[in-house]
């Protein structure tokens, strides 16, 4: 009787451990795996380059004209084409440009200088 009770306790403990490990793996996948794909150095480079383009004064005009290829090449040139850059420009109703599935993405919202037309510039990068 004591022996059976002991085995039952062990089985119970194994089940409890299995459930806990399952949840740990699940949470680990949901949080850590996603965040580990994020390349902070690359994101910082994208942020710096978009700010630089904005300061130079061409970004606002290009964005409101949906000239995504020009923005792509300008950012790539800043880093000697060491990253692959994809740009999408969205206004309220549509998005134009290229996009890839990567967490290394930044969003930059601007309004036009001459004609008001707010747009969101999404920059995706891949090493």
């Amino acid at each position: 009787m004591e022996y059976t009770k002991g085995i039952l306790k062990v089985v119970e403990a194994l089940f409890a451990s299995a459930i806990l490990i399952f949840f740990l793996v699940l949470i680990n996948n949901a949080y850590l795996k996603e965040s580990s794909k994020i390349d902070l150095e690359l994101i910082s480079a994208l942020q710096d380059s978009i700010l630089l383009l904005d300061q130079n004064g061409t970004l606002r005009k290009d964005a409101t004209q949906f000239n995504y290829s020009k923005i792509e090449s300008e950012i790539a040139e800043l880093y000697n084409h060491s990253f692959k850059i994809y740009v999408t420009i969205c206004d309220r109703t549509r998005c134009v440009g290229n996009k890839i599935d990567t967490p290394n993405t930044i969003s930059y919202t601007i309004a036009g200088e001459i004609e008001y037309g707010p747009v969101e510039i999404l920059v995706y990068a891949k090493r």
Partner: protein
Amino acid sequence: MQRGELWLIATILLVTLAVIVLPLTAVPVIAKIDEFFFANINEELSRCVNLNSCNLSDFVAFINLTSTKRGYRLNLIYFYCNSTSLEIGNFYNLNISLKITSELTQVEEEIENGKVKYFDVYQLGKHLNVSYLGKKIYLTCERRNIVKDLCLTFVDVVKCSLE
């Protein structure tokens, strides 16, 4: 201590690790992205004021849209004035009662969520003290000026500024 109690303690420790410690390791990454997005919104709102073509409330609506798309929740109230008019836009996700005091008058107003109200600066005066939600701001309307109370929430990270 009995074996049952030990199991209970071990279970609590593991669950704490799973629910609190592991998700917290993702927070620095979130905060980093948040900061750039937040600074961009703040900067663009200030710039919008200086563009003749910019419609502030419309721009806030657009920012709200982009914030929602990225999973952020935006709470914003702005006070924009020039020498003739004062515009208050409430996008704080709650109705806000505010009191405007100046050398000329004292006004109490309630602004519904998502609404914009306009006031005549000639009647209000150019130096305004505004209080709302337990906060106090000072606004001078001799030239174009904007004060923004902006909060961005992402997961449980809240970032606010009042400037």
